[in-house]
């Protein structure tokens, strides 16, 4: 089993890792000849399937495995990967390879980097800092040594080699065979979300409000209060509605003029005219598809906004919410886009 690759688009890789890490600490990574797939499935909360083409984050990719279809399955702590990628940001060169240390499999990241430019401005005229300028230097003064040294510190900056070893677990194909990507029926409403930072700020505000303003004290209500639910609705007329409804509060934010993207008939399992969204469009602007999400979980999901990609939300009325996050290829604009799919956990009313 062999895996070795150079890293590219480290910033994007790092942001993706951070977004996934906000949902779950450990990811399942599946590597094959064409794609690298990150999957996180928390015990409770939304799951993510991020399938990236290899050349989004890797180059000089080398993979050898005895498994069927040349795949490697790993379990990987996202926090450590994120930490290692942080070292690799702004590096000259970084690669990643599967290795073993003390019998434990490791993803070893080797980073060639420089430290930041050194500032030496404060060395100027250090004597003037204190009012001791009127004292002449004594050459036998043990403290005089410090000043003389500062002039010799202008050393050439050299490249440093940093190795970050991330412990991993190699998974047998049998263990991952049973993990299947969820299947959901065609959505009732699909809509492009407003900027996620904005959506997240308002959602978080609603969640915090719900956490602080509850008056009832029954046990059921308390658990409800600790995990406030937000109601998300969208229609086929470019509207998205976010609502918080408690026994003391009813607040709503509405976005309009959002885009309901056209469907690509070639991607559909049903003829376009039979697609559920047609009925919702015919139903008019008052025909909403609604799901309820957990405020805290939703906040973690929206953390994906840091990838700065276009996000399409697909609503299956009172049933499911799926987000498709399109990861832009910065080095190939207009080219293929990779998709990160969020199956947002939703709750019935």
């Amino acid at each position, binding site marked *: 089993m062999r895996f070795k690759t150079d890293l590219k688009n480290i910033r994007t890789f790092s942001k993706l890792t951070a977004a996934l890490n906000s949902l779950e600490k450990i990811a399942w990574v599946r590597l094959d000849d064409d794609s690298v797939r990150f999957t996180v499935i928390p015990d409770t909360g939304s799951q993510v399937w991020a399938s990236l083409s290899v050349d989004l984050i890797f180059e000089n990719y080398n993979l050898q495995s005895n498994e069927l279809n040349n795949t490697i399955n790993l379990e990987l702590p996202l926090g450590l990967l994120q930490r290692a990628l942080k070292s690799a940001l702004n590096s000259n060169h970084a690669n990643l390879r599967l290795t073993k240390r003390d019998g434990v499999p490791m993803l070893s990241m080797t980073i060639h980097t420089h430290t930041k430019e050194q500032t030496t401005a404060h060395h100027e005229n250090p004597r003037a800092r204190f*009012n001791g300028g009127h004292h002449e230097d004594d050459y036998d003064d043990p*403290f005089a040594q410090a000043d003389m040294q500062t002039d010799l510190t202008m050393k050439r900056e050299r490249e440093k080699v940093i*190795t970050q070893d991330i412990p991993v677990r190699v998974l047998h194909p049998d263990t991952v065979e049973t993990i299947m990507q969820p299947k959901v029926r065609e959505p009732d409403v699909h809509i492009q979300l407003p900027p996620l*930072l*904005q959506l997240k700020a308002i959602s978080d505000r609603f969640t*915090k409000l719900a956490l602080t303003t509850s008056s009832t004290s029954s046990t059921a209500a308390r658990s409800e209060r600790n995990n406030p639910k937000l109601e998300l609705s969208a229609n086929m007329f470019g509207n998205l509605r976010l609502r918080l409804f408690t026994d003391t509060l009813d607040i709503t934010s509405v976005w309009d003029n959002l885009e309901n993207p056209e469907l690509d008939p070639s991607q559909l399992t049903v003829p376009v005219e039979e697609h559920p969204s047609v009925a919702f469009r015919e139903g008019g602007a008052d025909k909403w598809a609604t799901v309820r999400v957990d405020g805290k979980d939703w906040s973690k999901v929206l953390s994906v906004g840091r990838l700065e990609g276009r996000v399409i939300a697909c609503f299956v009325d009172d049933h499911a919410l799926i987000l498709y996050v399109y990861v832009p290829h910065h080095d190939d604009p207009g080219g293929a886009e990779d998709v990160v799919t969020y199956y947002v956990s939703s709750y019935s009313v």
Partner: protein
Amino acid sequence: MVVLNFTLSEDGVAVLHDALACMFKFSDDVCLEARKDKLTLTTLNISKSAYVCFSFAANRFFSKYNFEGSPQYRERFSCQLYIKSLLTIFRARGGASDVSRENAAIERCDVAIDDGVGKKSRLVARISFRNGITASHSLPYEVKAPTHAKFNQDEAGNCWAISSKTLRQLMDHFGPSIELLDINTDEENHVVNFTCFTEKVQKRGATNSEAVLKKPLHTNIAVEMDEFDDVSVEDKMHIIISVKDFRAILQHAQITSGDLATSYSNPGRPMKLTYGADGVLCEFILMTVGEKDATYQRHKTPKANSAKAPTSRPELDSASHRASSAQQVQPAPSVEKQPTQHKIPTASRPPPPAFDMRPPPPPPPTAPRSPGLFISQDGGDDDDHQWDPVNPDEEEEENARIEWHSNSESDPFAPRISSFARKPTQQSDATPPERLVSGLEPTQRLSDVRRFGLFSE
């Protein structure tokens, strides 16, 4: 009689504060030792594995310096103080705006130590601000001989020196929850390796369970020898020190200046780190751990090793010249710990209100970063906090933990003086509503006058 008095410029106060802040990461107390030619601050951590010594040259660091001595303390005078109290006195002042900073700028700081038979032992610091306000602080101290760690320079054949800024930046690559730093050389590749690891994970057994994934990051940084000054180290020797101590040192070294020089002998023997700034000499003596898997030592000297290696600490030279116990003065902390608070009428507590005031509405739980509903979107690439989950305090945010200031935040000092140091601050925070009842209109906001240095924070 006045044993010692000296005057500091504004920069001098800042440098002194930096030094104290660094020491505070090691210990709660500092020992001040005054001689004719220098003032020395020393401290030893509680496990006696790290010793810190800052020397300030009398003729270079201070605007004025005068050591009088006394019949009792002719050569030198030494005493022990709480670092936290000193940090409060010498802290940086100034508000956010340039004007307020200008107003609160320190013009000079006079410190005097008054001691003698029949006198109250006090360190008095008088800080004069540009705006004409003078704040006086009076601290009790304990007359006590300092403890110095011994370091045998002749024995320490290994040494290297490198820019402390470079070293400090390299430390950023080490992840959280690591404990030990292994420094070793590799002549073949002409590099010095800095390796971070945690001893806990050396335990075997749980290799096939998920525990493997909970191991911390193992980080190695190879730095070319050319980047060092004077590397002279035995090849393949591993010297291991505490990461926390090393970080605390570098944090201070990088703000000070230049090169950090080390010298050491063998694993299990102390290591010395030094750097200097203008008129200040900073020295640290750290105990090193026996070698990584200790095989090297075990084979060499099995007997000596068992006596020495992991348990041995820097040997301390407490052989100070004077039997100080006779003159020991108890710290008597409660009496005048916060003298300024008593002098300023606005800070004194008004009588309790006649009826229950409704407490001010509690602040919204946690909305530190987004005061407005909409946050601007121009936050830079690195400003990633906006994407944090809504309730980060519920997460075990291991990654968010940055350890540079862990000591000052965790506040190990609190148990000792919390009863009198904490309460006044809380009371002064709570005063505004109460004052309305007692009928005294405030003339200035507390936050406006605080920057003049009148109140402790």
